[in-house]
């Protein structure tokens, strides 16, 4: 079985969106299989600014299964350094933008990512990017579908 580092390398050189989504799914599965401390170390190892940037670009591309990217970022953000990189790369802005879609998986993955990314140190950025209005909008509408 390929290591997480190999999967990340393959992701960065993969051509098709579907191949990228599959690789991100495998990265996420591999992180989930690790004990928490090891997952954090691995996240720190693979969560370079360039990988974070590539995943964010994949997420905003609007391709099917883009939410796999959010799940990977969400999981890697348990590691504080990676969380800061994701926030610095525009993770909050990207996740908030995806709340406007009607894709339930994407909305839930975005909310989960936001919960991991937004802390006291960047709460104002969340509010400034209309975070409160978008949350209230979600609360006011019926669910897109039940899980």
């Amino acid at each position, binding site marked *: 079985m390929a290591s997480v580092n190999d999967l990340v390398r393959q992701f960065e050189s993969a051509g098709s969106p579907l191949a990228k989504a599959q690789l991100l799914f495998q990265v996420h599965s591999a992180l989930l299989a690790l004990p928490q401390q090891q997952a954090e170390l691995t996240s720190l190892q693979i969560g370079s600014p360039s990988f974070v940037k590539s995943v964010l670009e994949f997420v905003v591309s609007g391709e099917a299964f883009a939410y796999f990217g959010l799940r990977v970022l969400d999981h890697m953000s348990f590691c504080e350094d990676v969380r800061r990189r994701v926030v610095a790369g525009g993770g909050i802005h990207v996740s908030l933008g995806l709340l406007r879609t009607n894709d*339930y998986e994407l*909305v*839930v993955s975005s*909310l*989960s990512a*936001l*919960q991991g990314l*937004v802390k*006291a140190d960047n*709460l*104002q950025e*969340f*509010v400034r990017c209309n*975070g*409160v*209005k978008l*949350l*209230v909008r*979600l*609360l*006011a509408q019926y*669910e897109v579908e*039940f*899980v």
Partner: protein
Amino acid sequence: MLDRFYVIALLELVLSGGKPNRDKLLHVGLPALLEAQLQENDHLKQAAQLKKRVIKLLKEVKVWEAAVPQT
């Protein structure tokens, strides 16, 4: 249902973030929305934990609302 858990958790975080954020929550009509959640949405009946959190959030927002001077 899962989306509601995340929304409530994020609203709790915003509420804990000081006066400007609390004022913003009042400005967008959060108390009325939470009341509506409790009264109208069937799925809350199936999620006791979520309902408890909505009630707690509503109480906190109302305390803050009462503290704001009426103009």
